[in-house]
């Protein structure tokens, strides 16, 4: 079995770099008008009009327990599609697309045991940096009615 290579979209939140499976990324958008939706968790910023489709958008900073910052020219909204459910996530900036094979990815259990951090699926070691890989399903799990 050869090492399986996977591509990840790498983006920045605060001082850390995170990665998301590129197969689950639909498109990356510049910030646009967001309409607030009442009665939603605090990290849901509202909905956007993405070429005729209404897509909910969350602040990934708030979702991961970081403080919100003002948007600047680097701010992006990454639109994900997970099992047919579309949503956007606001990130500080999107840096690059990286390829990791399985040997570069460290399983999550060996690093952390904190249950609150279960939206992390692993950590990838690139040459000069560490990239935290996100478990995207977990990010929205609590929003999906059983």
């Amino acid at each position: 079995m050869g090492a399986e290579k996977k591509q990840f979209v790498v983006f920045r939140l605060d001082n850390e770099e995170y990665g998301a499976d590129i197969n689950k990324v639909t498109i990356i958008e510049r910030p646009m008008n967001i309409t607030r939706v009442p009665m939603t968790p605090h990290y849901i910023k509202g909905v956007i009009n993405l070429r005729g489709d209404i897509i909910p958008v969350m602040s990934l900073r708030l979702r991961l327990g970081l403080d919100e910052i003002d948007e600047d020219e680097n701010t992006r909204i990454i639109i994900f599609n997970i099992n047919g459910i579309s949503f956007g996530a606001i990130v500080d900036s999107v840096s690059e697309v990286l390829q990791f094979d399985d040997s570069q990815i460290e399983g999550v259990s060996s690093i952390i045991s904190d249950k609150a951090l279960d939206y992390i699926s692993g950590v990838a070691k690139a040459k000069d940096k560490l990239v935290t890989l996100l478990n995207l399903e977990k990010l929205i799990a609590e929003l999906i009615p059983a």
Partner: protein
Amino acid sequence: MDMNQYLDVFVEEAKEHLQNLNISLLELEKEPNNVTVLNEIFRVAHTLKGMAGTMGFSRMTNLTHNMENVLDALRSKKIEADITVVDTLFKCLDALEGYVNEIISTGGEGEQEYEEIVQSLTDILDKSPEAKAQPKKKKAGKKADDSNANQKDKGLRLNLNIYDKNVIQKAIEESLNVFQIYVELDNKCLLKSARAFLIFQILDKYSEIMKSEPSVEDIEDERFDYSFTVMVVTKHDETLFQKELNSVAEVRNVEVVRITEEHTEDIQDEEGDKYTQDDKHDTADIDSAAQAQKPGAAKRLTNKTVRVDIDRLDVLMNLVSELIIIKTRLDDVGVGEKTNEFIAALENLERITTSLHDAVMKVRMVPVENVFNRFPRMVRDISKELKKDIVLHMSGEETELDRTVIDEIGEPLIHIIRNSADHGIENTKDRVAKGKSKTGSIWLRAYQDGNNVVIEVEDDGMGIDIEKVRKKIVEKGFEEEEVAANMTQSEVIEYLFKPNFSTADKVTDLSGRGVGLDVVKTKIEALGGTIELETEWGKGSKTIIRLPLTLAIIQALLVMVGSEKYAIPLSSIREINNISPAEIKNVRNQEVILLRDMVIPIIWLHDVLEVPREKSYANKKELTCVIVKKGDKLSGLIVDSLIGQQEIVIKSLGKLLSGIRCMAGATILGDGNVALIVDVNAIV
């Protein structure tokens, strides 16, 4: 050719026929001697048999065949359409529906044999030996016909040309057999090309098809009458083809002729064709004669309609929605430099988009009859089961509703009607004792009311004992005793729609009433409708369901709440009033206003939508109050200002945000921004 492409047609048509069967059987029960009805039932059973046979559903064919025998005996008055017969026929109908449902979900008819039904069909026939002999005789006659036809004409039907001649000669040299096979289908055959496909499959198995008249393409497209002729090269002999092809259902005549070198001798030029052409004339005559035999009604009325996948209509509807959004946008961008011409063009565009929307909507409309027509049978069954005398009166079956609504509304209605029959209508003894007519009545009515369609279910049964419900509210701990005691009738009735309201308590005669009513309510509200219940103890109850005509595009009032725009569906708005803050009174911790002697509760949209209220509101001279109605209940929504009326396209908020109660969706405004649609039913 693939059988699957016929499956949809089969299912659609089978459903229609079963529906007809249902209606006719109900009529037969009322008038057992009505020959027209009997003929109709026979026709339907026969058609179904043919269709099932064509598709290779042998169990279904078997059942319908047995039905036919009984029906035939009925028609010839060998037996009477008594209660056992009708009941058995109803059972057949259920079994057939079972088959069709199985076909819908799995593509095959399943394993269920319904032996006991077939047995009871035969039992019915056994009662009159005469009738039993009859179908046999008929069969024998048919066989004789066939053999007659076989001997009739040995000439060649095919138009052989010089190429065919070469093929034939070559085949004969290799000591293979060449046959001309002429197949004539029964003129009642519905899926001709599917039937032809089966035949071609058999031919393919045993031989190589060299030539076909009409061409295979024409046959596939059903461009042929009831017969076709093929030339095959094979190592098998004629008897095999006779046997195999005659075993296919709905084949009226098979004629296998060996083509020898004699036949090809005179093929050199066109002259050789003359003989065969003459023959072809004959065939054509037979065909037209066969067609003339058919009653005029056989040319079905559906000829001018097209079956369209609902998904395609959805796509069309979406495109219309996009168009309306763009139109609204055009309306907005021109601000300032609008010339008269621009405005005129825009108005024209608006007219067209509105008509387009109406047209697409109409295409999606289906009469409620499609849902209603299963109820007579249901009520009949319930009344038999419960030994109550119940009659169902229906009206307004032609009222039309959006297809998606039609698909969803069946279940809730079944529930309500069952409730009426089961718990509403008293048994005959009680009815007589109360001085009511022996027969209980349930009315099912549909009619259009503005932008809504109203469906009412009314019964003249015992109604609901409000005091019992009131007690239960307290028992179940929903409210304190004194609060419950002060509630109005309609407030009490509201509790019947609450989840878990009456499931546990089986002791009272209320049990059942209210079970699942919360599910009914949820369903209706999910469709954008409302449900109300009126009742009078001892006299009966009435359930009123209001449904929107369309789901996708509505007229709405755009309002500002704080700095945000929201849309309120115009259909739920009664009026708009300016009120002064001083008019707001507090009653039992609820803000209300008095409007023309009516007490109307006030809801601040700010609070519902989590928008901070302006602190200075008390100093404001005027507040804008949108009076909305939910059923017959009015409420006042306070907003900051009005923007105007607009046609909006409802878009879903998506799965992630589907749990939000007070939002009915979102819409895209002319400037590309999103505005949320307030779900009036959920907040008042």
